């Protein structure tokens, strides 16, 4: 009991030090901010009281129903509270971003209103009275799609909705053949229209028409759709390229025995440890020499080094985890090595290849340094570089535009991530088990 008391006193002392620390740090003029005196203390006490109350209620409930589980009940109730704190902290930036993107105020320094919700008055959240779609309208205003691209956009949305519907129907009524057929059709329509859209949109479609009927090329903050298209194109091609080149290598490593296998494997691993950006000057020099600066080809090739090594390594691991008996049967039946690879291994590893593609796709989407060095013209920029042009320089006047662009730019990856959530996060779960 004494040890507990000592711990308690030390905890109190630490908490007591916090206000002192806060005074020491308070060097910024605080008159500009809305301050609740000792707000942190109120919040802390409030949280402890609420959590304690809920835990106590759970404990009492548990003691009345299942006495030996009462402690667990209290603990679980408190866990809910703790996790909600984490969730709120995690989601706060996302909610704030969404709110800003749907707000008329474009300036970060817009003064908060005098009345209304406490958080709104403090400027923590934007004023809901200024709700507007103007940021999105600005960002998209100069995007002039051709009629067939509008059709494709429509198809994309319809296919997406059909797909969601089909998945839900499948969950309530599994095993229906027609639903499955509809789902497959929707998937193909989705992929097809997305690919054609990405390939067909180009820089010349971004202009505004003035009163005299002349076309003015857009400034870069109105080209977000183009940036997204560029990023999707580069990421998609890098992923496809990595998968196409590395499958044979992964197969050779997994299934063939030859001299130099171990050293080659080691070489692949070492290369994988050096992503292209570490040799950034050399990549820049090489691409300059090859005349591939400011081209997607150059960027994709620069990514390919790390991508191929990584993809071969994963594919090798996958092949080693499945039994070779299937191909051996085919080989005994007279198939060639290549035939066995092409007709048996590739078809059965399509889910794995998709997984490798997605990993590469998501990784490339967020790459910054090489894209920043190699892509110089704003018609070639990726989303990250485009956003950077809003944050450096004219930042204070571009906050709303940035938020709307950020939301639009995040959507593709968000959709892909949650569509394949289990596959994408499961590997680390499995990795943890193995380690």
């Amino acid at each position: 009991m004494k040890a507990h008391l000592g711990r308690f006193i030390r905890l109190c002392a630490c908490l007591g030090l916090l206000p002192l620390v806060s005074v020491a740090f308070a060097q910024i003029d605080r008159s500009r901010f809305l301050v609740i005196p000792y707000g942190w203390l109120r919040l802390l006490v409030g949280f402890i009281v609420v959590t304690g109350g809920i835990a106590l209620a759970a404990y009492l409930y548990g003691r009345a129903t299942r006495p030996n589980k009462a402690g667990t009940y209290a603990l679980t109730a408190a866990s809910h509270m703790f996790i909600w704190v984490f969730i709120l902290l995690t989601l706060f930036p996302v909610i704030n971003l969404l709110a800003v993107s749907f707000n008329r105020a474009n300036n970060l320094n817009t003064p908060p209103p005098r009345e209304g919700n406490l958080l709104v008055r403090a400027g923590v959240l934007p004023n809901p009275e200024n709700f507007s779609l103007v940021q999105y309208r600005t960002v998209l205003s100069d995007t002039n799609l051709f009629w067939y691209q509008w059709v494709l956009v429509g198809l994309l949305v319809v296919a997406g909705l059909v797909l969601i519907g089909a998945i839900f129907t499948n969950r309530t009524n599994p095993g229906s053949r027609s639903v499955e057929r509809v789902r497959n059709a929707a998937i193909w329509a989705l992929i097809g229209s997305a690919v054609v859209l990405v390939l067909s949109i180009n820089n010349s479609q971004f202009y505004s028409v003035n009163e005299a009927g002349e076309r003015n090329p857009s400034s870069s903050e109105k080209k977000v759709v183009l940036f997204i298209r560029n990023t999707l194109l580069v990421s998609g091609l890098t992923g496809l390229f990595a998968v196409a080149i590395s499958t044979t290598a992964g197969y050779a490593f997994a299934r063939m025995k030859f001299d130099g296998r171990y050293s080659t494997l080691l070489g692949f691993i070492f290369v994988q440890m050096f992503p292209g950006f570490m040799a950034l000057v050399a990549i820049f020099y090489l691409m300059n020499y090859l005349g591939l600066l400011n081209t997607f080809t150059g960027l994709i090739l620069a990514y390919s080094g790390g991508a191929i090594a990584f993809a071969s390594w994963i594919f090798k691991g996958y092949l080693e985890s499945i039994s070779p008996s299937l191909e051996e049967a085919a080989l005994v039946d007279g198939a060639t090595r290549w035939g066995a690879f092409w007709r048996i291994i590739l078809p059965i590893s399509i889910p794995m290849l998709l997984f490798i593609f997605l990993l590469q796709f998501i990784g490339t989407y967020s790459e910054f340094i090489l894209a920043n060095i190699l892509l110089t013209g704003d018609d070639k920029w990726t989303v990250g570089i485009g956003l950077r042009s809003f944050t450096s320089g004219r930042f204070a006047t571009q906050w709303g535009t940035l938020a709307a662009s950020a939301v639009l730019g995040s959507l593709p990856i968000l959709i892909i991530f949650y569509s394949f959530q289990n596959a994408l996060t499961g590997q680390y779960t499995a990795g943890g088990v193995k380690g």
Partner: protein
Amino acid sequence: MTVDISRPVSDYLPKGSGGTGGRLWKSLLLLLLAITIAAGATFITLWLAQQIVPGAPPYIGFLGGLAALIVSLQVIARRFEWIMPWYYLLPSILFLLTFALFPVVLTIILAFTDYAGIRNGELNISSRTDIVGVQGNTVTVADSATLRCEALRDGCADVAAVIDVSGTSTVTATSLEGTALTLAEPLLEGASPSVVTLELTDIGFSAEFNITAAQGNTLTLERAPPGEVDLENVGLEVPSEGIRRTMLAVDGNTVTLDDPLPEGATYAAITRYNDFGFVGVQNFTAILRQAGRALGPVFLWNLLFAVSTVLINTVFGVFLAIFLNNKDLKFRNFYRTLLIIPWALPSIITIQVWKGFLNSNFGAINRSLALLDLPVLDWLGEVWPARGAILLVNLWLGLPFMMTATLGALSAIPEDLYEAARIDGANVWQRVTGVTLPLLRTALVPITLTGFAFNFNNFGLIFLLTGGGPGYEGGTSTARGTDILISWAYNEAFQAVGGYAYGLGSAISLLIFFITIAVSLVNFRVTGALKEESNI
């Protein structure tokens, strides 16, 4: 075919699939031969392409190389069947050699050069100086200061230069038949005129005619001039493609060249090339010389950042995962889905959004802190708050991953261990510290080491959030408060404040290579990732 199942499967496999049978060097030599042929074909194709279409992009050559490669591989495979495994590896190996290994080698080479924005081996347009007179191999220029010889390593000696043949010159022609214009004297070396101006005597004014071909002293015009022309007075326009020479010395306004210029032409201007070459260990001594102001602080912060961010993320990740691992917790999958949102958003975008939140006067972070009466910091304007901001944002970005990985590791801990602990009378706290944490450690060590290696070079986070800043007193303009090694190298190489010192940037990259190798070796030693492979 009857199959005798007592024999090993390999007896039935087709030839050329079992392995190279110890012929490693032979295989590599054959591959090298094929690649050499392909490389030769690449250069020949490139040369031919540039002869036919001047200015053809260099990568055209690769198409020819690819064709040659496929043909030579076919021929080799017919003769040496056992080489097949290498064929499966060849595409990857080729790309790795070109776009992964070669840049590393190039980095090592460039680290020993003074390659820079003003030393890039290219034509320096701003050094263009007018030529006043030419005498054999000596050229008198209007102002030799424009050549800026002092910016070069050994002055202008042994530096290449281009001498422009005068933009327009007046020559005499002998005859005009249709579109063929014959000049009195053959064209000068290096001069490829594009336009002639002819005085049309019938009409009384002059007109320009494009030249489609120039051979010796005969020019072929695009269209025939109408009526008579003044043959005595032909204006010849030469685009600025000039004669290339090497400068030997510059003395006053006199430039001595290695070869005399052809006589009889008017020369407009001389433009020098930028030089760049090996400077030994000069880049490394430069790094060491400012070790106290740049290398030291940057390296220490780099290490501190990588270690502390991994520690913080792991602590929070484990904490959250232990809560979420509670089987009695309802909605735990829903909670998990909400908590991994930062992982699902592209970090390249969210980091830049965080920059807005961290704005000291108007950002949501400071407004929230002020609302709670907590200390308000100038997050991006001062060194230590900026470092804190980086750790905070990286926690937000990395927590979902650590949480998921820890949940995976937790689910692998057998339930009966907890059961045994419970029977032995351990309470919740003792079960966490006695069972969960020790078993987690083995699973988390590889993850944290990978996280360390990743964060050690986490350029995107630093560059997009703080840009390496803020600067501090006593630091340099390229290695500021939150710069890590890789962003320092970037600043030296690609930011104007670093003077585009590519060589210095490469030297820093080389240091990063060594550190990364060391970290990875430790990683392999600890995790034993390669052990099972080496036994095969």
